[in-house]
């Protein structure tokens, strides 16, 4: 349908539309505003870390970075743990109960977080979870548990039942079977779900925006958003913030690319 030249042309143009802005942001994060406006595409005159020092120290993005690390490092494994426990039970239980538990947990995917924000805010207020990292961990768990159960439970249901039956005849309890059979066999699906959750939790903006009051409790996306008002056109500073906020995800993408594609696509196809 498309000749080879048209094909190459479209692909090349789109590649440029992706690469050029990213390069401009990378170069720009080392420039002054005047230097950026004078030549957005040129290499920076020096690799002076001035903008980075300013965002990390002066604007305290360093502590927001740590907050994001803490929240994500707890919420991703916690979500995986609860989801895999549920997925495992669903894969071993039979008939109506299996179906009912799975259905109940997965139905939550139909409730968009933004539709739930008022009552969740009220509930978190009553529980004293507003303005705390613990509250953000819990919010991440609540919002992604249904899809995590869908991905992991969907996978575990396809594991051959004989594996479980053999171990239960050997007298192994369900916990041992979970740890030594279900989890190792589900490793690829867990890795894909972990990446999917990592990207969502790391980039989460809505809950921090709703819950966090003190600047000391901000996560990266919220801290970045607050830049927007203060430094309307100080693009180099915004760019340094963008690079800092994206770095962990980008590094992970370079090394674990196939899990990214599998995880985010699994999330999409099942969401």
């Amino acid at each position, binding site marked *: 349908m498309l000749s080879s030249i048209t094909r190459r042309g479209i692909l090349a143009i789109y590649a440029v539309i992706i690469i050029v802005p990213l390069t401009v942001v990378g170069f720009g994060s080392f420039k002054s505003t005047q230097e950026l406006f004078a030549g957005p595409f040129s290499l920076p005159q020096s690799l002076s870390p001035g903008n980075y020092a300013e965002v990390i120290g002066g604007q305290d993005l360093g502590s927001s970075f740590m907050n994001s690390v803490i929240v994500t490092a707890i919420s991703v494994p916690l979500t995986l743990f609860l989801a895999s426990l549920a997925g495992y039970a669903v894969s071993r239980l039979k008939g109506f109960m299996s179906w009912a538990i799975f259905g109940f947990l997965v139905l939550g995917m139909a409730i968009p977080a*933004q539709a739930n924000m008022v009552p969740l805010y009220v509930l978190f207020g009553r529980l004293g979870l507003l303005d705390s990292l613990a509250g953000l961990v819990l919010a991440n768990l609540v919002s992604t548990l249904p899809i995590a159960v869908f991905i992991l439970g969907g996978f575990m249901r396809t*594991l051959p039942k004989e594996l479980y039956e053999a171990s239960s005849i050997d007298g192994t309890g369900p916990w041992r079977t979970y740890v030594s059979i279900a989890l190792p066999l589900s490793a690829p699906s867990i890795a894909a779900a972990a990446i999917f959750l990592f990207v969502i939790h790391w*980039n989460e903006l809505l809950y921090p925006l709703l819950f966090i009051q003190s600047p000391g409790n901000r996560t990266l996306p919220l801290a970045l*958003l607050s830049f927007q008002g203060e430094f309307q056109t100080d693009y180099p500073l*915004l760019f340094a913030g963008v690079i800092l*906020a994206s770095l962990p995800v980008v590094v992970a993408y370079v090394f674990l690319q196939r899990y990214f594609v599998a995880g985010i696509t699994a999330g999409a196809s099942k969401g």
Partner: protein
Amino acid sequence: MSTHTGLPAKRKAPGSPPDVNANKGRRRSPTRVNPALYLFPLPAVAVIAFFLVMPTLQAFQYALTDWNGFSAAFNYVGVDNFVRAFTNDSLFTNALMNNLKFVLLVVIAQTFFSLILALLLTKNSRGSVLLRALFFFPTILSSVSVAFIWKFIYDPNFGLANAVLGGVGLEALQSSYLGNDAQALYWVAVTQVWFHAGQMMVVYIAGLQAIPRELYEAAEMDGANKWQQFKSITWPFVAPATSIVVAYTTVQSFKAFDLILGIAGNPPKQSLDILSTRIYSTFANSEFGYAAAQSIIFMAMIALVTWLQRRLLRLTPKGE
């Protein structure tokens, strides 16, 4: 005693199930279910019941009140909040119309564009694999980061878009982009497609690669041209992928909250206000009862549009 002590030795793509064929035709073992198994889903069920289901039900209750979120007393006002949203709140109807327009734009553009990218990159050559990784890349960035990148592209004075247009002598096409209220939503739609087309491309590639090559060979022998092949083989066969792409893109663009706040500021100006940002503003304005009612309309809109699309997609030809 089991013949399944060995694990599937082949390396599998992550997410794909191990062999289940061995399971076929075998009767379920009569072993009793260990009651301890019922403990395993308890934590997840408790979290969902307490923090998702209960609050959602409460939203319906709040929606019928004039509660401000703080005072102990509030009144039940019936469906007043819903009536107000549709008849007496131009900010809300504006956000609703913007959101529907945005969803329509993004769904059409993204579905079309991600299918084209997928068609161009179906073959597993080294170049294709590299480009797929590149096109997918923006998806992993945070919405706020993408918003900042595009704020600079769209900057009317110093931005990349106008610099490029000026550089190639197309000053006539220069624009103030987000500054132009009539165009702003379209430009954010462009950003949204740049952000997520690569993700949908991957969904399409999986669908395309599952089409048996023999079909194309047979069609070619019958003298079918490329367009005929697309129409009668490719399109019907990727119908399941299309419905995934359309459904996912719909929900994603209904929820473009982060991107809008990052690119337009908080609160966004009217021409860029969508439902989720409007709900947030109502909430921040301490009108909890009204914000809850808006949330319910929001959920209903997502459900309605998704249902309409399913109906529409069913009209398109399906594979056998």
